[in-house]
């Protein structure tokens, strides 16, 4: 039987706290994005297209919506007889009895599964970056270079986008990482990590067991930085569209950047499709007298009002006489007649009443929680 080159492991809850109330009832992985996706879709799709047949999703809390989204994994072709998709909830009773903190403990918790896998390598990924990276290329580069660890990273495009939680790396002339920096804006010449890396499976097991027994918590700091001399830490530079979600504001600007055709073309390359759960919405309906400019509209929307620079998720309804500018309207949210919204992110199933007026700012978009009635 063919042994798979690599298995995938996705950390669903990492960075959840960075987007505030948006993850009050969901994981970072299940944060809705781009009209019909969840953040986990980008990672899962890339894994599957790259030939990974065994993918584990490590969850810690608030994972109702994620489990519901993933279902049997069929939409990503991961409802397999052999291997496939596995969700790993924290296994109470089997280990210490409390829920883990940090990536090392999370990995330690699923070590039995990692040990059982027949794969040579493990691809680890957080869900805080939106991109359409090439998993096959990443893994092959890792193998061809004989690296111990390979970090996927990108060149910092904009000084402002760094900040909170960023991990960045400095390479020598051979592409080998010689410094790792944490939780601050990347320095000059440093590459930003996409929080996606490949590591040899047996090495990972050894490092995690060792680190866990020494009560270490952060993978990048306590393992990678620590072993920077004795491990060959390699990098692959991704040069396509990539956005990091580390705040409500960056969620907003990342979403709005999709109004640029080039960004869409890169993220939604038809040859590299992003799979997601199917919702069976009817087509979007544009009513008499509606006015739609520079907007992304998902299926199932009914638009009778006016929208400009907006992103409408599946089933959003914009009644006649309402005006929306620079807004993100999530699934099944209804904007009633005569309402006026600007720089608003309305989560799922929100109701904005007749003639209401809500205004945020580009630097501080107004976020309205799931199910709110305004």
């Amino acid at each position: 039987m063919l042994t798979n080159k690599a298995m995938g492991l996705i950390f669903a809850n990492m960075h959840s706290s960075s987007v505030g109330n948006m993850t009050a009832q969901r994981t970072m992985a299940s944060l809705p994005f781009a009209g019909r996706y969840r953040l986990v879709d980008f990672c899962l799709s890339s894994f599957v297209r790259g030939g990974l047949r065994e993918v584990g999703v490590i969850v810690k809390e608030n994972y109702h919506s994620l489990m519901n989204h993933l279902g049997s994994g069929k939409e990503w072709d991961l409802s397999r007889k052999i291997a496939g998709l596995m969700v790993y909830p924290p296994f109470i009773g089997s280990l210490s009895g409390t829920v883990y903190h940090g990536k090392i403990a999370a990995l330690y918790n699923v070590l039995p599964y990692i040990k059982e896998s027949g794969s040579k390598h493990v691809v680890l990924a957080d869900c805080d970056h939106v991109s359409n990276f090439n998993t096959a290329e990443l893994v092959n580069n890792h193998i061809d270079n004989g690296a111990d660890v390979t970090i996927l990273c990108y060149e910092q495009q904009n000084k402002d986008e760094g900040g909170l939680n960023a991990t960045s790396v400095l390479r020598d002339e051979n592409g080998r990482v010689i410094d790792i920096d944490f939780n601050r804006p990347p320095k000059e010449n440093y590459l930003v990590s996409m929080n996606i890396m490949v590591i040899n499976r047996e090495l990972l097991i050894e490092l995690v067991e060792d680190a866990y027994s020494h009560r270490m918590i952060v993978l990048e700091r306590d393992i990678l930085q620590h072993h920077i001399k004795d491990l060959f830490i390699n990098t692959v530079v991704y040069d396509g569209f990539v956005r990091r979600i580390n705040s409500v504001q960056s969620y907003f600007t990342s979403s709005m950047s999709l109004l640029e055709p080039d960004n869409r073309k890169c993220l939604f390359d038809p040859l590299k499709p992003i799979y997601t759960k199917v919702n069976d919405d009817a087509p979007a309906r544009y009513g008499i007298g509606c006015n739609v400019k520079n907007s992304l509209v998902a299926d199932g929307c009914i638009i009778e009002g006016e929208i400009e620079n907006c992103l409408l998720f599946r089933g959003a309804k914009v009644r006649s006489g309402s005006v929306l500018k620079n807004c993100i309207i999530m699934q099944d949210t209804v904007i009633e007649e005569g309402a006026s919204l600007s720089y608003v992110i309305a989560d799922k199933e929100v109701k904005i009443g007749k003639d209401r007026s809500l205004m945020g700012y580009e630097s501080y978009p107004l976020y309205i929680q799931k199910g709110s009635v305004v």
Partner: protein
Amino acid sequence: MKETIAMLLAGGQGSRLYALTQTIAKPAVPYGGKYRIIDFPLSNCINSGIDTVGVLTQYQPLELNAYIGDGRPWDLDRLEGGVHVLSPYQKIEGSDWYRGTANAIYQNFGFIEKYNPEYVLILSGDHIYKMNYSKMVDLLKKTDASVVISVLEVPKEEASRFGIMNTDKDDVIIDFEEKPEFPKSNLASMGIYLFRWDVLNKYLEDDNNNPNSSNDFGKDVIPALLNTGKKLVAYRFEGYWKDVGTIDSLWEANMDLINPNVPFDIWADDWRIYCRNPGRPPQYVSNDAVIQNSIATAGSSIDGNVDFSVIFDGVEIHKNATVRDSIIMPGSIVEEGAEVHYSIIAEDVVIKKGAKVGERPENMDDIENWGVSVVAAGLTIGEGAFVRPKAMVYDSVGEGEEC
């Protein structure tokens, strides 16, 4: 093991759709922005609680086969039952393509027997409608009929285009006339038959042994049932129903989705229509676009003017292009300044800059030459070319040419 199974007749070439069914079977023809015709009977089945469907086909089934796949979009991927495409095959005694609708069912008795149903529902793959078939089952049980036939009241003046059922006051069918010159009623058969399996078994066996039969349900089997005194009951369907067997009716059925006065709502949650999802990102409407009174679907991108039209996934309408009263099927592109009026543009067509397809009736002098224009899949209409109203385009049209 299964109370009711459905047999869906999807075999027809649909020759009256001409250019649209050159390489695909009629039930696979796109409809309504993201559907194919067959989505309607399949969705009706699952919504009615029928989870076993045989799809009978012999004409260009590759695309239909791939589209149906494992049946999951309709929740019809089942360990027992589910949806299965049935093609003609060879037996030790020889082999035969399907002759007539009744023969197609007869050749697949082996499939039906596997499930040993009480009732067999015969459907066809060329109608757009939402219908709860379980009501026909209820009626059959209640009236103890052998067959229940779904009927629709049609305007008297159109009745002679249909198979007409005459019924008594209890809706028991007294006689049946195929396209009568002087119709005795206005109850038209919708081509939906619910048979008791034992009755179907016997009458199709007889029909197969009858060398004079054309092996058709309407022409042969139903009259035979009536002649031998079987109880046939009409089920009166109320609601939207459209045969999309012609270019005009296919065009109309699409436009009906936009028309707020037509009571046919595919947005309602209580009777979903499922389809295989193309999996595209949301549609984009640019700063230069004007879109109204239209429906459009994921993956399309609209830079031009769209009015009273149906836009499928992956369609691009470029700047200053105009699409009105038209249907643009998946992947087609209308380039800058091009115009499309009253047309059906099949899949992956490119309409080059400044070309014009179709015409508005109000601009015609000779109105009898007016009609819906059709461009077949994969063609290119060259820059500045003109496709006349009512044209049926099978081959690409060169730059500046007229056709």
